[in-house]
């Protein structure tokens, strides 16, 4: 099981500014070949390929990622019409079928 998602939300009027950190290796599988100095595929790829964000249970963002997103991905998005007491959810699924999710109530 991956480490929990971390989420920080700040309200700016009716806009929720959501910053998310998703602990994940985001392994590209690529390493530099000492002989040729080329990048070669040596270990299995392991990366988040799908991220969904919700506001009060309704999907607001649906993202597809490649292995080029940085390790422990950072994502920021902004939700309109948000207020204190609303919930923001983030879930991810990786190329091995592992997944994680977190729901946070806006303070």
């Amino acid at each position, binding site marked *: 099981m991956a480490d929990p998602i971390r989420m920080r939300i700040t309200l700016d009027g009716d806009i929720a500014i959501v910053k998310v950190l998703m602990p994940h290796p985001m392994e590209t599988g690529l*390493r530099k070949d000492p002989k040729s100095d080329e990048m070669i595929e040596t270990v299995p790829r392991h990366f988040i390929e799908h991220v969904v964000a919700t506001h009060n249970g309704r999907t607001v963002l649906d*993202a597809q990622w490649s292995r080029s997103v940085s390790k422990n991905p950072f994502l920021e*998005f902004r939700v309109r019409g948000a207020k204190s007491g609303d919930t923001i959810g983030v879930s991810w699924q990786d190329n091995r079928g592992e997944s994680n999710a977190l729901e946070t109530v806006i303070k």
Partner: protein
Amino acid sequence: MNIRTPIDRARRSLVRGVLAVMVAVLAPLKAWAARNNVAFDTKLLEEGIAAIGADGAIETDRIVFKAPDIAENSAIVHLEIQSLLPQTATIWLFAEKNPQPLVAQFDLLPGLEPYVAVRIKMADSAFLRVVVKAADRFYFVRRETKVTIGGCAG
């Protein structure tokens, strides 16, 4: 032999309950949008752009794309994208020199501001390209980011 005890029945209803919960939990995953594998797998920027249907995209200054001129660490390049185009529906991000240039696709649904920030890995100094679909038309903007430490490992 095959006599069902109350414990059997309790176990059966427990199994049914667990299955129902699993179905309820997994159902939303199935509803997730299909991945454009052709666009994500292609090794050439132009083919990736074609695969999302954006070969006729128009260059615009109405996409605010913040990318560093020089990235100290090619494994963590912080990018911010804000579209000023009405009815922005989808944002794509490409890194021209990466093994597969398409880095991310963001589908924006009602209620989301047309803004995302994300951190990416760059294989080499390259042009980064943002493509936006807004009101069923395609637009793009590009920025050159130089990396001082090469490599895209890990």
